[in-house]
């Protein structure tokens, strides 16, 4: 009887340390943020001194044109960078998935941008974009072109270019790993059947890589929604609100406007948005899997 009880308890005992850490590191701060988002909270106050205001922070945000603009900038930024990065990253991986001498050196070189600290990336691009002394405009002018007002009139594009530069390698490296682990038998079979390279890519490689690509895309999307340092250093959100993404607005709300409750509510909006995205992505893969299985079952039944 006792042994049975111990046996039954054993898994929980083993899970306990992880669960405790999860509660401390994840649930508590999250709960604190949710609690804080319902209060009018100045950073000079302790949370116990704050006043409960119900959903007023959320309502105020939903009617705040600056927040809505910031949300729209974030959505545009995230979808544009992730789309470009996916196309470039997967394209590069398809091109470089062959036996080239010195590939390992190349691969290391490719992922260098990812390894640089974001603040450094921001500073580097900011100087390169500088209207008079920046490398890019000096190069353009040496070719006889007009200089471009990178961080002024084209700030969002400039920020997108910097992000694409930094994060395409992430997608490249994951796609390459996925490509190299594809079953060779399927590719050989298609070659024997006379498939062209393009057909191989679209009908075999990409569908087989799909689960990896979806997870990669999701990771990048989540990251793109939270990017802060690079933009903070490059443009501080300007000109106007044209590059003020949500993470930056949250940080400004907390430090400059000193409205912790509103900042918490904003973080919760971002969290909800990301959760919806994640759920949608997983639902999509799930549906695909079910459909594939059903097709296989059909094929099996026909045979």
């Amino acid at each position: 009887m006792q042994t049975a009880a111990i046996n039954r308890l054993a898994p929980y005992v083993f899970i306990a340390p992880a669960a405790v850490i999860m509660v401390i590191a994840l649930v508590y701060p999250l709960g604190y943020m949710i609690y804080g988002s319902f209060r009018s909270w100045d950073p000079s106050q302790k949370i116990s001194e704050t006043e409960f205001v119900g959903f007023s922070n959320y309502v105020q945000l939903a009617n705040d044109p600056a927040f809505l603009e910031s949300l729209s900038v974030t959505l545009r930024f995230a979808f544009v960078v992730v789309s470009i990065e996916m196309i470039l990253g997967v394209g590069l991986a398809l091109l470089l998935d062959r036996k080239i001498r010195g590939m390992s050196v190349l691969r290391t070189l490719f992922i260098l941008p990812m390894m640089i600290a974001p603040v450094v990336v921001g500073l580097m691009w900011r100087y390169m974009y500088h209207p008079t002394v920046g490398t890019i405009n000096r190069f353009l002018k040496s070719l006889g072109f007009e200089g471009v007002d990178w961080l002024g009139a084209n700030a969002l594009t400039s920020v997108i270019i910097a992000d694409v530069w930094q994060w395409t390698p992430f997608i490249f490296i994951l796609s390459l790993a996925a490509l190299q682990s594809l079953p060779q038998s399927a590719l050989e079979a298609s070659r024997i059947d006379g498939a062209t390279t393009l057909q191989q890519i679209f009908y075999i490689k990409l569908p087989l890589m799909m689960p990896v690509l979806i997870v990669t895309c999701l990771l990048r999307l989540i990251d793109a929604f939270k990017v802060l340092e690079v933009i903070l250093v490059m443009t501080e959100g300007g000109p106007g609100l044209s590059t003020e993404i949500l993470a930056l607005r949250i940080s400004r709300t907390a430090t400059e406007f000193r409205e912790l409750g509103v900042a918490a509510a904003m973080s919760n909006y971002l969290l909800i948005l990301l959760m919806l995205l994640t759920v949608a992505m997983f639902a999509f893969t799930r549906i695909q899997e079910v459909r594939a299985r059903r097709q296989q079952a059909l094929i099996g039944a026909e045979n």
Partner: protein
Amino acid sequence: MLSVLKKVAGATLGVALMATTAMADPYAAYKDTTLVVNFPAHPHYDAVMRILPEFTKETGIEVEVDQLPYLKMRERQTLELAQDEGDYDLIAYVVFSKADYVFADQLENLARYFMNPKLANPNYDSGDLIDGYVYNIGFAGGQKGYLEGKTGSLFGIPYGSETSVLGYRKDIFEKHGLKVPETYDEMLELACKIPELEPGMGGVASRAASGHHASHAFLLHLAPLGGRVFDDAWNPIVNNEAGVKAAEALKKIVDCGPEGASSFGFGEALGSFLNGDTAMFLDTTVVAGQINDPNKSKVVGKVGWAMHPMGVRRGSQTGGFGIGIPKNAENKEAAFLLMQWLTSKKGDKLVAMAGGNPSRFSTHADSEVNAKFPHMATFGEALKHADPDWRPIIPVWGKINADLGTTLSKVLTEDLDIKTALDGVAERTTGVMEEAGYYTWK
């Protein structure tokens, strides 16, 4: 016998003298105390670091400095001041923190220290402290709640404060026979004339980037042009005639400025002047040290200084830092002694000679200081017109400032109509003020 008596008398006298000198040392009770202070990473406070050993030598009070980048410093202080027992005995705060800290009752009122005969030095000469700085940075509770006045009192002392002056390229002005502008009209005309006279060079280097930078540059023009952010009943009036004029001035300066001026923060604006890309620089006095540093500047020896041009009145900015004692400090009295020493005539001169920004009129007029830094006399003159009310210091200012700054950035980069833009700011500001309770008495 007599000689013995003499010896005894001599020894007694000696001991008595030592005892009186010991008693006359106001620092004796605090000897070996270690003060923990929080200062920003800023040229003035770098100079302070160089003079602190002198304080320790003189008083026996040790000082441990926690120097942080200034935005980080504010965050740290916000957390620290809310504790029951704080880590810091003395803090340097940036001017707009005054509203938050005083309102949350986190700074000591300095009256009890200046009243204490054991602590207050009778030779301190508070009248010599620069009025504009004291009222802007140290005072609270007077007019509008954040200025001097019959109901106000002192919570901090300006230290590392700045005002605005006009720097100009003497060589360029001489070359074309130009007159140093004294009024806004003259300056604005010159701003756009310079790119014609010197192709590739901008007129005035100004901050203009979205947010705090654009807002700061606008407010710099608003006061001399006769405007204010609020009227006496807290109604926003940024959109009146003076406000529109100030925004037009800013736009003109940016349009006639160096390439890419609309995205310049403070660093870029200063950089373009140091690099020789503009003929004028209208901003804070804190840059004076860098202009003649050959490692940073290509315009060494070519820069002259003049007062902030006059519009309908004189009104240069006031800003920078002050020092105050947190309510939760452990060694408040020793902290006051340090504060008093730093801002005394002697300390102020020491820090000025080390490259800091003095807070006293006498230091600006001091011959030794002027021999080393010839611009000090002009700065001292400019300080007589320092306007403590060029920008409101109220808790909700951060939000209004951000809105003003992003909206002006749109004016500068997206050609938004100035009047419409400022009307929008005024309308949103009314909402913010309403919510913060400023219209309760209407």
